[in-house]
């Protein structure tokens, strides 16, 4: 039986290096924190990295392509996170054969995963080629990761076009839900007029805003350690990802990301009062 509320969410962007893998790990870990059984699937065939970001690179034995080619079964390839019993990862293969991802194979695996998991987070490769198209084809919702920078915004616009036309839902005449996640945002640079603002990007892309992740040293720090940002120590980025997950789940969260140090203070107080409750 497929879980009735099971959701496939693709994390996509068009452009590379904008924060898709960071985001996939952070969203997956936070969903698991909240008690949802979650798997993060690495679609970046040939360039697997999600395992590193999630700190399970030494536990990879079988991968996505092994399962498609029936050299292993799904249970053998899934790696359970050591920090949360709700979190799993399906690593990508390092094969150079991009055709290894067949639509039938991907569908079969996702159907299996839907039986077990509440959320299936698909970490898309960059580009709009096969791997990226496969990652988004079966999605119910999409998180469009965008940096406040011209080439990233343009590529996001292209990927939104692809999401509107080349998913299974689109082919059946339905629109999938698309969320804008602005990452590597620097409020002080926006204030100085050096960086596109949230409003600018939103006006151009015209999809609802899921969250704003600040440019933060906590991200590199977390990836050095193989810890998803939302499993790591308290930080501005962690807070922002937690808020994004809350919105993904339909909660209404106030936006504090754009205010300066005052909001950091208030944010700290808020965190404090949260943990005091």
């Amino acid at each position, binding site marked *: 039986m497929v879980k009735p509320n099971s959701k496939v969410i693709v994390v996509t962007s068009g452009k590379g290096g904008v924060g898709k893998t960071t985001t996939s790990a952070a969203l997956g870990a936070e969903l698991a924190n909240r008690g949802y059984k979650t798997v993060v699937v690495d679609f970046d065939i040939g360039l697997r990295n999600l395992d590193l970001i999630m700190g399970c690179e030494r536990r990879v034995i079988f991968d996505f392509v092994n399962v498609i080619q029936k050299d292993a079964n799904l249970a053998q390839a899934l790696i359970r996170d050591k920090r949360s019993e709700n979190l799993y990862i399906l690593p990508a293969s390092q094969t150079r054969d991009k055709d290894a991802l067949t639509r039938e194979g991907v569908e079969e695996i996702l159907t299996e995963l839907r039986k077990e998991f509440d959320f299936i987070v698909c970490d898309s490769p960059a580009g709009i080629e096969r791997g990226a198209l496969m990652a988004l084809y079966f999605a119910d919702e999409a998180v469009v990761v965008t940096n406040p920078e*011209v080439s990233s*915004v*343009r590529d996001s*616009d*292209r990927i939104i076009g692809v999401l509107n036309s080349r998913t299974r839902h689109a082919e059946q005449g339905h629109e999938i839900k698309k969320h804008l996640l602005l990452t590597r945002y620097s409020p002080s640079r*926006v204030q*100085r007029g*050096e960086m596109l603002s949230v409003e600018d990007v939103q006006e151009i892309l015209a999809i609802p805003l899921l969250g704003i992740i600040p440019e933060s040293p906590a991200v590199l720090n977390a990836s050095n350690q193989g810890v998803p940002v939302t499993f790591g120590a308290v930080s501005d980025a962690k807070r922002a990802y937690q808020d994004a997950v809350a919105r993904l789940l339909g909660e209404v969260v106030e936006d504090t990301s754009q205010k300066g140090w005052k909001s950091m203070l208030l944010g700290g107080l808020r965190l404090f009062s949260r943990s005091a409750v």
Partner: protein
Amino acid sequence: MNIIRKLLGGLIPQRKSAKMARERLQIVVSHQRNDGGDVDFLPRLRHELLTVLCKYVKVDKDQVNVQLQRMDNCSVLELNITLPAPTKSSLSELDEVKAI
């Protein structure tokens, strides 16, 4: 004096750069949406044009030039076809075509 100039020089262009980014993006994105981000059809268009043209006139492959030019709020599709110097028979053929 120098410091002030440096400060101004550092600040003024930056203040404008986000605005420029926004304006450039608005244009590029509107084009992208109009042609579905897809100008890959130009080679096919050229090929199909050639096939149709060849039914009526003898044209050289290299004499068909297709170009898409983007302006601020529209695009211009420019077709440049050089026909061979007309021979008598091809002229009468053309007349036939006109008559149809």
